[in-house]
């Protein structure tokens, strides 16, 4: 009898472990906050200002707002970061999912992330982080960049918007000659 129970518990443990491993990762890459249910919003538009200056604009088809955790989970995201100079071209972005962490002033984009930089330069990756306080865009996932005359694949990127220097790790660059 004991042996049967032991086998039963073992099988149950394996099933639980299997279910745990098979659970799909949250699309925002982070577990949902515990607490009250989120407020659900559709066709949202969020804007962030420093003084009277627009620093970030985000739009999404759907948003889950976890007020206590200061988290907003977005789907079908698009947005723009205005250039530091008034006449400069903005940086635009789109992704399948987004996570805005208000406390950390961070935005994480996931799923078919595309960034359109000035000068017809595009960045494609799966995960991209934006730290608003540093005005830093970074990613540690493989990244592909297209621009007129060249295509670059890299392991990671770091881009300080105000320095206008995009840094790529382990780049493999194919240039048109």
């Amino acid at each position, binding site marked *: 009898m004991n042996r049967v129970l032991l086998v039963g518990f073992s099988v149950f443990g394996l099933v639980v472990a299997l279910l745990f491993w098979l659970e799909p990762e949250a699309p925002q890459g982070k577990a949902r906050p515990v607490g009250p249910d989120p407020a659900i919003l559709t066709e949202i538009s969020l804007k962030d200002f420093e003084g009277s200056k627009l620093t970030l604009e985000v739009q999404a088809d759907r948003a889950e707002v976890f007020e206590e955790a200061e988290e907003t989970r977005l789907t079908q995201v698009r947005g723009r970061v205005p250039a530091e100079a008034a006449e400069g071209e903005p940086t635009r972005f789109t992704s399948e999912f987004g996570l805005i962490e208000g406390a950390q002033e961070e935005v994480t984009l996931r799923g078919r992330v595309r960034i359109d930089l000035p000068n017809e*330069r595009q960045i494609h990756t799966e995960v991209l982080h934006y730290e608003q306080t540093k005005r830093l865009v970074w990613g540690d996932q493989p990244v592909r960049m297209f621009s007129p005359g060249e295509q670059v694949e890299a392991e990671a990127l770091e881009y300080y918007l105000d320095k206008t220097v995009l840094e790529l790790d*382990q*780049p493999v660059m194919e240039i048109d000659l």
Partner: protein
Amino acid sequence: MRVLWLAFLLWPALVWAQDKAVLTAIKAEVFKEQGRVVLIGQVRGRQPEREMTLKADRLEMLRQKGSDDLTHLDVKGNVVLTQRDATAEFDHGTYEKGIGLATIEGSVILTDPKTRIEGHRAIYDLNRQSAKVLAQPDERVFFRLLKSAQDDPNRLVPVEGRAKEILLFEVSRKAVLQQQVEVHDQEEDAHLTAGRVVIFLDENQELEEMTASGGFTMKQPGRDSKSDRAVLDYKKRLVTLLGNAEVFQLDEGRVEGERIEMHMDPEKGLVSGQRRQPLRIEIPLD
């Protein structure tokens, strides 16, 4: 001398080629406003169509705003460029497409199976297809050219020497060695000095002729020669001394004249030649 052309053409060719080049590095910095890309650390490049490879510590490319054409290339640090069997090594190179000028400097070493040139700085004018190789102020440019031996065309023997600067002319297949020129021909065991030496190569890149001016001297075992100018014909293996020519040959004496022709091989002696003044020959009596 093929190596030099290849070496110079090598990395501007990154810009000329019709197809793509692949570059890798540890890190890239993209300055989007300036159209500038800098590759840093273990930069490697290849251009399969031209069988070219590049190694460097740093590569910088500048594109023209609007057209996105590459306008400027800059490579630095332990640069090694290869194209098939030709190699160029140097510390720093720049190429300005607008003026068609490529400059490489540092420890410049250009090699191919038949040529080696070592200098400090080289400038190549792509429009004129000519180059100048320079040395440090207190040094001279070294060169080595392998020619086919007379008795066995498959055996290569070196002609090497030094000069303050070497000019190379691609179209006319000639090299001009200027200032404090020294050349040593191992096969002939001949040591030449002059103010200026011009080397002509044939269509097979074989040494065809050398002309020397500005106080020519040639020392060979058993023979010393000097003149204002000289022509060394490697096909006929003849040396023509011109202007205040003087030859001293051991056991045969001294010959002076305005023009003296002689075999490259001292043992074969002099060749009769036209002379505006009679030859004066001193024959030792003992």
